[in-house]
């Protein structure tokens, strides 16, 4: 009786396995296209396995300066962006996790943040500001306007709130000030949530394209996703030479290779951080 595997377990396992597969199929499909022969791709013969295996598209991408320039800008953006996001988030979450009794001004600060989570000046005023500050075509245009990730702050704040208050109280008795307690106690204890927001901020910076499109006057300053969005959406052809150009750059395999390469960093960093974020996200989001 104990060894009997019930029908339910079988169906359940199969169902969940197919569900997981469903999440992977599109990625596998794209990767398969990127390694396939172009003729097979035009004829729509690619499912999940490359046909006429070739590295040709990757070789073409490798020679494509614009792709790597954009890649480099995205890397730079992620480094600066994540660093700034994380530091600001942790710095702000700590005071906000204090009770109103201990920190009466908390309410004012929270409202300052909540208000702009919803109200936004709109495209043109944001554009004017970034322009007037002279940030155009610099990495700062991509990093500074998103420097304060309010959602992440709330997440981190909620996480810190549920840390047992006795720990801090003990340190307080020993005479440790806010800074000392913050650095030596709170930050180490908040590792799961910090890993989580780091991942979120990494993904956010790596994935965003709209600001790259608006805040850059030179295509050579586009981050990777903006560069890709440009390729995927542009098919306007007004003259013969342009048409031939596009025919070359719109080749499906080439596009697939660039998509796959763009996904790669996410796939690489994800397994490392994911062991933390289950804890970080659930405690932060769920527990008030």
């Amino acid at each position, binding site marked *: 009786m104990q060894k009997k595997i019930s029908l339910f377990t079988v169906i359940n396992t199969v169902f969940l396995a197919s569900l997981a597969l469903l999440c992977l199929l599109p990625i596998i499909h794209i990767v398969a296209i990127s390694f396939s022969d172009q003729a097979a791709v*035009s004829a729509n013969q690619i499912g999940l396995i490359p046909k006429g295996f070739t590295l040709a598209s990757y070789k073409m991408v490798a020679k494509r300066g*614009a792709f790597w320039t954009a890649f480099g800008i995205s890397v730079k953006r992620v480094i600066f962006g994540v660093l700034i996001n994380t530091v600001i988030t942790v710095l702000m979450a700590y005071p906000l996790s204090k009770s109103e009794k201990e920190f009466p001004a908390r309410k004012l600060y929270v409202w300052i943040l909540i208000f702009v989570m919803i109200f936004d000046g709109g495209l*043109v*005023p944001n*554009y*004017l*500001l970034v*322009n*007037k*500050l002279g940030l155009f075509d610099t990495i700062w245009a991509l990093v500074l306007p998103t420097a304060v990730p309010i959602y992440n702050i709330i997440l981190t704040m909620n996480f810190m709130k549920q840390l047992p208050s006795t720990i801090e109280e003990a340190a307080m008795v020993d005479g440790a000030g806010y800074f000392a307690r913050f650095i030596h106690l709170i930050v180490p204890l908040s590792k799961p949530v910090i890993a989580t927001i780091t991942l979120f901020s990494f993904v956010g910076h790596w994935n965003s394209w709209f600001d790259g*499109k*608006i805040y850059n*006057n*030179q*295509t*050579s300053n586009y981050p990777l996703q903006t560069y890709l969005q*440009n390729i995927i*959406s*542009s*098919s*306007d*052809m*007004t*003259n*013969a*030479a*342009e*048409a*031939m*150009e*596009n*025919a*070359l*750059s*719109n080749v499906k395999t080439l596009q697939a290779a660039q998509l796959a390469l763009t996904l790669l960093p996410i796939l690489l960093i994800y397994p490392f951080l994911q062991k933390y974020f289950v804890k970080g996200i659930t405690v932060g989001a769920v527990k008030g």
Partner: protein
Amino acid sequence: MKNKVYAVLLSLTLAFGIIGCGKQDGADAAVTVEGPKSEEDKMKKYEEPITLTFAKAEVVTNYPAGSDAQNNALYQMWEDVMGIKVENSILSASDAMTEKLQLAIASDEIPDFAVVDAMTLDSLIKNDMVTDMTDIYEAWATDNLKAVVGQQNNALFAPTISDGRYMAIPVANTLGDSYPILWVRSDWLENLGLSAPTTMDEVFEIAEKFTTEDPDGNGEQDTYGLYLDKDLNGLDAIMAAYEVYSKDEYWVKQDDGSYIAGCTNPEAKIPLEKLANLYEIGGIDHEFAVKDAAKEEELIAAGKIGIYIGYFYSPLMVMKDSVVNVGADWTAVPMPAAEGYGTYKPGVNLNVYGYIYAKKGISNPEAIVVMLNHLCDGFAVPDMDDGNNEFYDKFNELASDPEISAAGPNNLMPFQMQGNINWGEKFTEAIENGETYVDGKNADYQNVISTELSEEMSWAWKKVYLEGYKVMDMDNVRYSDYTGAPTDTMSKTMSLLNTQKLTDYISIIMGDQPVDYFDTFVETYNSIGGTKICEEIKAAME
């Protein structure tokens, strides 16, 4: 606490000043421009090189090694020949350029000059951002330039006029680029024993046969008679056969002096019904409404489509793939009128790349005309090489570099210009005379006569110049009866109107709605701005 809050509000108000302020009035002192000292001066080289900022629409992806949109041989050439250093302060994909420029206008930071569309030009003029070019053009333009950009009684200038003054100069393009050509699979015609159509009615009959009679002989009904894509490319050319001018922003003057939008002409029901019938029997790709041109053209490449309304250069773009894939052959047919209608006249837009403006307050606005003078002599007049044209000679020299040639030398320049030269006849003549060089389009001519190109490329180049060009009748075209600057309502609603037209036309063609739904469309179109625009046009023309 209250005080603190007010303090915060006050500092915010101050900070808001960063984005809130515009330019003070009179910030730009009026610049006086001297006339040219001599005829040669019009084609001068600035001794002390001047730098002008520019908005460059990027189309090249394969720059020659070590070059980019800013640093390349052609930009260098402009500097060497004219003493004008063009600096791309905005570099953007061409389909994002309007957005970029609109944002630049919003922040009052436009480049010194750029080639813009009528809508953007209108924003610029309304915001008082451009120099009045009337006198500068009059004084500095060469006769050649005046002949090209002033073609058809300065018709091309219409959108640049504000209070009777020219606020920009049209950058002429060839009419050929927008003149529709009916490309038909000649191998299919042959297979089915058909001859080329001479009326639009025959075009539909052939399209039907191409669908149902298995023209590729593979025993399956897997072919489409007619090409159509989600932007309805080609539709306007069909409509013109019924004297309906359905292009975006195309206005037709009625006998009573009022105007209507061309696309609301009820005659349009005839071709729409024919298209709906063709769609129903499978003569048009059932998915055309979600495929952009690039996507839909895959069907042409795969040899599945028999009739394509394109342009003289279409063989180079898409049709050549069908030659490789299925051994297709195409023939260029002059667009025919429908039975009972007069000579076919395509509705065309003003043949311009755009309108070149000089930012208000720049110190050398005449440099814009000087650039145009050089370009015009190099590219737009029939007999370009009078032996004394440095710009043109250098261009040809650079264009012979294989890497530059591959990237497209015209695209590497800041902007280009063309005239209405019928190269088809010139090339045919040259081949008959066994010439090895054709002035002005020599690079293309070399491709036409080359024996080293791949079979399909050689086929394509020949189709372009020896067939496509020759079925064009550039004297018989029809401009919109209103080509002036966009009216208020036009600026506000034009893209909504265009979308309305597109979605309703598509619904009718796909049979989602009956043909009589057209009346509902006209009603909607007029109520959301159509009527108002026509009234504004009438007022503007009086």
